[in-house]
């Protein structure tokens, strides 16, 4: 039995002074953080409290109501207010360091930008810098009338902005001071398809590979939505509170063997228990004995790949990343009767209900696509699909479509919807771009799917709920 790692979840416990660790999303607009507000408020309060020292600041003399107004603008993402607030504190810190060297008097200040900061940001930095210098008794002057010269360079490395000031007082040797400034978060990219319209909503991000996410029904309708997230070491249970997911519990996945490198997993909501988690060679189920636990057993249990309960199940090779092709299918011969069918090894499969039959489509390991209708096995080659597909019911066209992963010109993956009206797939949407490679794609309820993306830039996995609807 694997020991619970509760209390040391995550690999960084930090220093004793920073053990507390935050998993909650902020309620701020993307890219903004509370400290930005705090910085702004602190700056404004400082100004209000020290008016004489802040004469040159652009916000000098503002009343509380104006402060609130600026705050609101800031909340709404007003560009200049945002820029100003983010750079106020570091700009002041650098100014203080400069003033310590120059002392009061006439100083020539030159600001250059070697970083990716925009002109608006550079202007905001300059304003903060000059304001604080003035507050320290520095008079900005032309170089021929100044007793000291300061060259500020806004530079950067991969981790942070680095603002460097080279200060020369009279004919003394040049002094160098600098501050490091954390980068603000990048904004989100909107995503909308066409024809069939695809919309993605970020559900969860974490560093460990997300394998599947299941939305859970709550018996108490007032308690809000619940969600389970599966990765290679645990099932995380979360609930939605004030629009943000809060983690309730982590249930460790117990297993003895090393996982395959391209790990896959599936979460299925149980009938008489909360969840089943399918992993390579391991089946886990939640058990409620006072507290909820996850009991795992080494079993090559066939996996469901479809939301429909009656759908066939497939056996995943416990050491690899594909299904063996052995299909366990219920038959109408007798109650509970099943039969094995042999198919090519495949990565994913979808079932498209037709009037008189079900069309099964498989993405096989050799790169071909197989379409089986119970009578024939058509092999499609040259179809621009990746390995992962999911069935979605949009109601457009023939009703059920295939959502397939694929690559884009940027190298990232996209999701596109294809209709299969007469055996041949036809694109029904433009591609929905993701910020990395799609590592998992599972069908959800009828017009939804779950896509997991490895965002190399962020070094994290991101789970998206993808919605499909008929467009124009």
């Amino acid at each position, binding site marked *: 039995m694997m020991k619970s790692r509760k209390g040391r979840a995550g690999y*960084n416990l*930090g220093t004793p002074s920073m053990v507390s660790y935050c998993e909650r999303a902020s309620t701020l607009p993307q890219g903004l953080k509370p400290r930005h507000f705090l910085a702004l408020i602190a700056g404004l309060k400082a100004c209000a409290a020290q008016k004489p020292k802040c004469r040159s600041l652009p916000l000098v003399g503002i009343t509380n109501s104006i402060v609130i107004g600026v705050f609101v603008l800031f909340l709404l993402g007003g560009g200049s207010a945002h820029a100003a607030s983010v750079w106020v504190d570091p700009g002041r810190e650098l100014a203080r360091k400069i003033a310590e060297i120059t002392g009061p008097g006439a100083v020539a200040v030159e600001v250059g930008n*070697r970083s990716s900061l925009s002109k608006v940001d550079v202007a905001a930095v300059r304003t903060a810098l000059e304001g604080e210098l003035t507050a320290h008794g520095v008079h900005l002057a032309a170089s021929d009338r100044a007793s000291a010269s300061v060259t500020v360079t806004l530079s950067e*490395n991969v981790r942070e902005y680095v603002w460097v000031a080279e200060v020369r007082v009279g004919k003394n040797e040049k002094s160098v001071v600098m501050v490091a400034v954390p980068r603000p978060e990048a904004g989100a990219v909107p995503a909308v398809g066409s024809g069939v319209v695809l919309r993605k909503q970020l559900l969860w991000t974490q560093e460990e590979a997300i394998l599947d996410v299941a939305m859970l029904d709550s018996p108490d309708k007032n308690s809000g939505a619940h969600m389970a997230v599966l990765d290679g070491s645990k099932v995380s249970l979360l609930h939605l509170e004030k629009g943000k997911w809060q983690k309730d519990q982590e249930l460790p996945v117990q297993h003895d063997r090393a996982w395959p490198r391209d790990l896959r997993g599936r979460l299925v909501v149980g009938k008489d228990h909360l969840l089943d988690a399918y992993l390579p060679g391991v089946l886990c189920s939640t058990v409620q004995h006072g507290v909820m636990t996850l009991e795992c057993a080494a079993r090559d249990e066939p996996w469901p790949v479809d939301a429909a309960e009656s759908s066939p199940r497939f056996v995943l090779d416990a050491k690899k990343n594909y299904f063996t092709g052995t299909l366990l299918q219920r038959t109408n011969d007798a109650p509970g009767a099943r039969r094995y069918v042999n198919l090519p090894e495949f990565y994913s499969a979808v079932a498209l209900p037709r009037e008189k039959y079900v069309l099964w489509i498989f993405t096989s390991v050799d790169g071909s696509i197989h379409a089986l209708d119970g009578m024939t096995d058509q092999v499609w080659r040259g179809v621009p699909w*990746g390995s992962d597909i999911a069935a979605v019911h949009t109601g457009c066209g023939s009703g059920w479509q295939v959502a397939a992963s694929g690559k884009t010109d940027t190298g990232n993956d996209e999701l596109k919807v294809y209709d299969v009206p007469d055996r041949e797939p036809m694109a029904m949407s433009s591609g929905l771009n993701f910020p990395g490679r799609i590592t998992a794609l599972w069908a959800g309820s009828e017009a939804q799917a779950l896509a997991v993306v490895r965002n190399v830039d962020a070094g994290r996995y991101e789970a998206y709920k993808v919605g499909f609807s008929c467009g124009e």
Partner: protein
Amino acid sequence: MRGVAFNGRAGEGACPYMSIAEDSMRLAVRYFAVAIFLVGLPAWGGVRPRYGGMLRVAIAESLASLDPAEPDPVKSGDAVARAWVTPLLFDTLVRVDAEGRGHPRLAVAWQADRSYKRWQFWLRPRVKFWDGAPLAAEAVVASLSGRAEWKARADGEFVVIESEASRPGLLAELALARNAVMRRGPALVGTGPFLIKSFVAGKSLELAANDGSWGGRPFVDGVQIEFGKSLRDQIVAFQLGKVDLIEVGAEQIGKVESEGRKAQVSFPVELVAVVGGAANVREALSLAVDRKSIQSVLLRGGSEAAGGVLPEWMSGTGVLFPVQVDLEKGRQTLKAGQARAPAPTRAWTLSCDAGDGLARLLADRVALNAREVGLSVQVVSSGTADLHLERIPLGSADPGVALGEVGRAVGAKVAVGLSAPGEIYLAEKKLMDEGAVVPLFHLPLASLVGERVRGFSEDKLGGWGLEEDWVEGP
């Protein structure tokens, strides 16, 4: 605290109280954009990896030993080959990426005390050596012991590393290839994704997939590596389809890309510098060498003219180390030195690695430029020389650790525990003075990948993750 990341973050926004490392997680800036542009793009979007097949690799350097610590790779001249080969065989406790974030390898969790003098590591469960022996704290301690920098000891299931000096950058130190964990004995035994099938020192290495790898079996069945193949021979073998993965010299990147091939190019991770000589000679040389001109002619694609030891992407303080040519100032510097300590005018000898074509080209250009300020420099390929043109791998994305690696290479001591940009800048200046270093260029590592290879993505530091690759066909 830099270099440490969190493991959980809710979606739809950012955690309000994240560390600086977390803040900087989103690069979205030119370096990454440049890297993506230069590196090219993965060619297997949407497709899952397949199992089977062999990867064939050629490397210019000759590897005499697979032990990443012996002899000292900084001094043995095979640091690049070691940096590529070691992760295939051996794991470190942690990995540190280009942004300074630590990631778990053999350790899944870690904690430092307030002084950063005592670190505790939780080991990953169920990790086994190639021979099936479980990885225990004692084995890790045995592997990491014998270092002057720290003392490692087992504390139950934990590994504790203590040092007299504060080491906020310990994760980056532990991520160096020479600190990989292994059992030494009649044969080296590791925990890495591949195990050694055969090794002919200096010539070839054959690896087989480790079925019991904690990260999962690699997708390919094995890797065949040929050492000591010249860059030219590598290109020929690549064009004939005999190898899947080759090095591309910094001087070849432009040509390769002009031929329509996409080279995988890292951030600049190697320092080219002249080492040695008196202070006034170094300063005059630095003012004389037309780095930008040499770069534009010889080093297209990812290289940078260097005035400092650390590249701009790592330090952000490149502005403080200008690379402009100033011949007049160079001449004055020499004259002033001559006035202070009169000596007969002489020719300075500059050595470089005889087998390194690029080093020879650069040395010749340096000698040519030096004449402009009145320095007579003669390039020699062997024997004792006054000045040496060195190619020094920076080894780490952590600026403090990278400075330490350069210090080891040039025999200068660098303080540990540096992290703030101001501290790094001062240490960099000191290293240039005490190590007698005249930085000239920063070079990237570059590779060319065959069409049948899928999933290859050289990281920003030039590392290969061959265990994640797979091949089309046999």
